């Protein structure tokens, strides 16, 4: 399994010189001014996005310049802790006992009230097969004191509210 045959031609191996190349360290420059305010609010368990006054798009995590209007958005708006999965993919972890590769979902979430997506992890208990586009999720804050950075959001959890548990339209009325 896993091997596909194709018409293969072997070429003579000539004039090969082995070489190794160590990459030097780089110093990148970024303007993270808007992110600072957002992180201070994260410390207080609050989510805020940056709203562009030109096109009303809300950016979370905040953006320095709005790509549509080329202006600097400067209006902070509060966001809810809920959101939806916009797209997802899998990364594969090795099961220590059986040695099998287990798919773990990596999702891009759009928070309610924001117009942008960003990549996060889901609750490790959620299986990959249960994830779908449009899945409602909510923020799980980390335990203990918050640091004021992205690690304060430990992961996103699936929402288990009453509306989700109704399987047939009549169920709610019966209860």
């Amino acid at each position, binding site marked *: *399994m*896993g091997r*596909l*045959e*194709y*018409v293969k*031609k072997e*070429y*003579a*191996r*000539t*004039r*090969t010189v082995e070489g190794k*190349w160590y*990459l030097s360290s*780089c110093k*990148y420059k*970024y*303007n*993270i001014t*808007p*992110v600072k305010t957002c*992180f201070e609010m994260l410390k207080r368990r609050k989510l805020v996005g940056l709203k562009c006054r030109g096109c009303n798009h809300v*950016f*979370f*995590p*905040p*953006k*320095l310049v709005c*790509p*549509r209007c080329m202006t600097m958005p400067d209006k902070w708006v509060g966001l809810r802790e809920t959101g939806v999965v*916009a*797209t*997802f*993919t*899998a*990364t*594969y972890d090795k099961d220590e006992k059986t040695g099998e590769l287990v*798919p*773990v979902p*990596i999702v*891009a979430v*759009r928070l309610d009230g*924001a*117009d*942008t*997506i*960003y*990549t*996060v*992890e889901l609750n490790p208990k959620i299986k*990959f097969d249960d994830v*779908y*586009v449009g899945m409602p999720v909510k923020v799980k804050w980390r335990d203990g004191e918050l*640091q*004021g*950075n*992205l*690690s*304060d959001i430990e992961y996103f959890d699936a929402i288990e509210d009453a509306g989700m548990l109704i399987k047939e339209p009549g169920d709610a009325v019966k209860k």
Partner: protein
Amino acid sequence: MMAGRQVAIAGAGFCEHASKRSDVNMAELVREAIDNCLKNANCELKDIDAFVTGNMPGFEGIGFPELWMTDWLGARNKPLMRVTTGGTTGGSIGIAGYYNVTAGLPGIDNVLVVGFEHQSCGDTSVGLASVAYAEVSLYTKFGLSMEKIQRLFGAGSAIGIASYQAINYMKRSGCTEEDLARVVVQNRHNAAKNWYTHLKMPKLTIEEVLDTPYVSYPLRYGMLTPATDGACAVLFTTEENSKKFTDIPVFVNGVASVSNENAILGYAGSGTGQIDPCEQVGAIESSKLAYSQAGISFPEKEIEYVEVYSPFPNQELQWLERLGLFKENTAHLRYRDGTTAPNGELPVNCSGGVNSTNAIGASGLERIAEAALQIMGKAGNQVPKTVHTALAHSWGGVINLVTLMVMSDKPKRIWKKGDA
């Protein structure tokens, strides 16, 4: 409005593509493609006035090939420029060749465009890291551990981006994994009929593809694009000169190169507004531009052959829809009924496409070369019908840059001042 000169393609050439061309070095590989192109166009090196070259920087472990490879290109003491735009390099150098000719500079009529990649020399992951490392290193400042970053963005590298697109495309259109495998099988069968391609699999079946393990859901090992060593050369020239080189010149009537906001990774740790990775506003905008230049109002009826840049099968379906060739969410149905087969109504990727041969810097240019050869009637896997208008597409960046070239067997009418 001032219009430029009409541009024609007079010939194209390839070298043999394989996963390890260990018998030649990079310069010799490039020379093979140039010699093949000059032979096909009945042209000599002294006829070439200027050169455009390009490859993906960092993938081979050798920088700035244009600085040391000039003699092998045959470009000594002639104008030479290099353009690199990652995956779109091939498409961008094609457009640069077009601009060189259409500008009408004195003494520059015949421009040779060369794209190449010798991936077995270097380390592709180092090349990819040089693209994404700046963004990723920023996230360490944002308090994420290196382990978490690897999990988040390791899944978001080239294959991850394609699987995001695939998941959203499958959600939109209802296409199944079997449909994706069908696209792969068609490409590999087409590649087997073409002399230079890499993955020739004449007997591949859908079941065999679906039997391979997942690399990243829903893409399986059997659906992936290979890493290829190869080169491609295309000769761009003026309308007058093209008749010296070939009986059936191919006229370039529209070009476009549009970039949109990148997806999944926003710039400088910010979010991105491209919520649906398969929405592809850049492709829609560039198709509008290119079609309007070429005077095409009904692309689904007027375009008779198309080469799209599709390393992964879901992208082939997605591009055909975004470029206006099929209706939204119906591309996979057209593969089921055989519309896209070489003898179908709209043949797609009869060369085998990027899905079967991917020498990154050459891939985009090979789309242009194959589309042009189909119009000339000289392609390796020639379609039975006569092709009048063809489209070549290429894609790259973080799901954002799209280049297009519309080609035809007739020149477009240019209204000059004083006409009519």
